């Protein structure tokens, strides 16, 4: 009963268009004021202690690092490198976009940031080279979603925090699925370009490739630094994030010199703005999950599903559908924070691996971002490509189908995600 009231209230408040964090907070307050004996004082306390964890602090650091990388010329050099390697195949620049998105995803933790970094350079370039507008916009919108699957990933940190899983293991579990998805998106791109007879770039010589590699090396080294550092235990994910923020700052300002010291305060402010927004949703979502736990809602739901005879396969399908629907109206961080605490206990009861479940959620979020009506990637890309959302929706179709197929693969083949972290002994 209380579950129905809580969710009904939350849904009603959210549909009024108020910020999601406020809707979450007001739901909790209303419920506490009217229906329980939980001391209301605990709320203010929870708003502080909720984010008092060093793990969560990885998020502001990764956002800062991402902003330095986006504005600091790292993306340009990665694109040049990717173009020199795959540009001579059919749909060369499209393939280069996929590869560049995968590379940039490995240093950035957010999908819209990846779309911005790669798309704002490659979409105009593709138009100029004579590709159809829809092709360029479609490829970047969907490949940008790799940002949250290939580590580091802000959504993975959020999942880890709300379910007490290991950030490191999640990061490693994202590597293989990320590479597979990049390959599949590349394949789709290649096939479309080959059928359409789109232009190719001349083949780059090995000397040119070497030079492009050398120029992008500073950005590529960051991948080694973050993943290698976390894997060898050199530092925790949060420390890795802080180190990569400082590293990205040094590369942008002193090595590539694409950014002035004068620009730094603006980047700091923009990063603080974005981080504070996420942290504010996190505190209120933690408040919300505290309410649900104290009302035993996840446990009741788990029992109910088990009694109804829902097995792991049906449950995962249900999760896929639920998350895709949620992805239509909300952005990934909020979905993860609201849904993970509810779905996680059920998944555990059904014997699904916590890390695998995390990857499933992340891939669902990816599809949701490229999916109308509210795909964050769609919005960002439509701004860059100067293309309406409706047309862009048609443009992403071929890649979106590939992603849906991939979602099925990830959902029902746990080894794809779990083999690497197991081999690295980061999980049992």
């Amino acid at each position, binding site marked *: 009963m209380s579950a129905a009231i809580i969710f009904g209230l939350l849904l009603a408040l959210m*549909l009024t268009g108020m910020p999601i964090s*406020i809707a979450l907070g007001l739901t909790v307050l209303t419920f506490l004021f009217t229906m329980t004996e939980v001391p209301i004082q605990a709320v203010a306390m929870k708003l502080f202690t909720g984010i008092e964890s060093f793990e969560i602090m990885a998020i502001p650091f990764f956002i800062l690092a991402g902003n330095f990388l986006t504005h600091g010329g790292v993306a340009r050099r990665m694109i040049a490198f990717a173009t020199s390697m795959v540009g001579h195949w059919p749909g060369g620049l499209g393939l280069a976009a996929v590869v560049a998105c995968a590379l940039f995803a490995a240093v950035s933790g957010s999908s819209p940031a990846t779309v911005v970094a790669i798309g704002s350079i490659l979409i*105009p370039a593709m138009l100029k080279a004579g590709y159809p507008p829809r092709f360029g916009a479609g490829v970047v919108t969907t490949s940008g979603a790799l940002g949250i699957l290939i580590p580091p990933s802000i959504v993975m940190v959020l999942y880890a925090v709300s379910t007490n899983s290991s950030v490191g293991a999640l990061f490693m579990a994202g590597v293989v699925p990320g590479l597979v998805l990049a390959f599949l998106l590349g394949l789709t791109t290649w096939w479309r370009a080959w059928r359409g007879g789109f232009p190719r770039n001349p083949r780059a010589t090995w000397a040119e490739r070497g030079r492009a590699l050398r*120029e992008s090396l500073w950005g590529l080294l960051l991948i080694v630094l973050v993943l290698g550092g976390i894997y060898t235990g050199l530092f925790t994910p949060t*420390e890795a994030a802080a180190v990569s923020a400082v590293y990205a700052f040094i590369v942008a300002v002193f090595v590539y010199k694409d950014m002035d010291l004068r620009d730094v305060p603006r980047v700091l402010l923009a990063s603080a703005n974005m981080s504070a927004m996420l942290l504010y949703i996190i505190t209120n979502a933690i408040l919300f999950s505290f309410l649900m736990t104290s009302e035993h809602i996840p446990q009741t739901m788990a029992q109910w599903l088990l009694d109804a005879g829902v097995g792991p396969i049906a449950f995962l399908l249900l999760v896929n559908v639920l998350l895709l629907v949620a992805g239509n109206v909300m952005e990934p961080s909020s979905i993860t924070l609201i849904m993970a605490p509810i779905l996680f206990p059920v998944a555990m009861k059904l014997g699904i691996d916590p890390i695998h479940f995390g990857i499933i959620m992340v891939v669902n979020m990816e599809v949701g971002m490229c999916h109308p009506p509210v795909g964050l990637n769609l919005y960002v*890309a439509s701004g860059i490509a100067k293309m309406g959302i409706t047309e862009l929706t048609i443009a992403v179709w071929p890649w979106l189908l590939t992603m849906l197929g991939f979602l099925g693969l990830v959902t029902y083949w746990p080894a794809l995600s779990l083999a690497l972290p197991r081999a690295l002994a980061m999980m049992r």
Partner: protein
Amino acid sequence: MNPLNLAGRVLDRLEETLIATLMAAATLLIFVAVVHRYLAGMPIPGLQDWLLHIHLSWAQELCIFMFVWMAKFGAAYGVRTGIHVGVDVLVNRLAPARRKVMILFGLLAGALFTGIIATLGGIMVWKIGHTLQVSSDLEWPMWIVYLAIPLGSGLMCFRFLQVARRFNRDGELPHHDPGQVEGLDEPMDIAPGADNIHPLAGGAK
């Protein structure tokens, strides 16, 4: 300029400077702590002894405190920049008059929530202020640390009211555009042609 406007400007600036500074300081702090940990492990005569004397075990705690303050005041700044998004698919389909009512309702709900939290936080800080509770590593009095809640939420409440008033008057909402790209305004040119594959050599600004 009238004094009220001036006070508003000063408050805006203060808010921006505070959160940007906290962001930078926390990053540097954790970076230094990591570097310190590894340098102290290296057998460099002199340097090692000196580094072992410095303890940075409080770095994590300070980083958390800085980020919590950054989050609370940054959330208030976020209201001003319109970064707190909601589910607006339904609202945007309403007739303009109704849409206005709904948006005002949302803004006032935000003011209500943050106002309640500021009050509750104030009461909590007051109570903790009468105890001797200190933080575990830095041993700072906790009530000062917790002050972020009433101050930050209070400011956020003020920002919601400010935005609501301006929206009611001019119909303008702050809007955050995730697609804006500063510093990337000149798109790179990679048209087919071998010499364009490395436009960076001369093209980097």
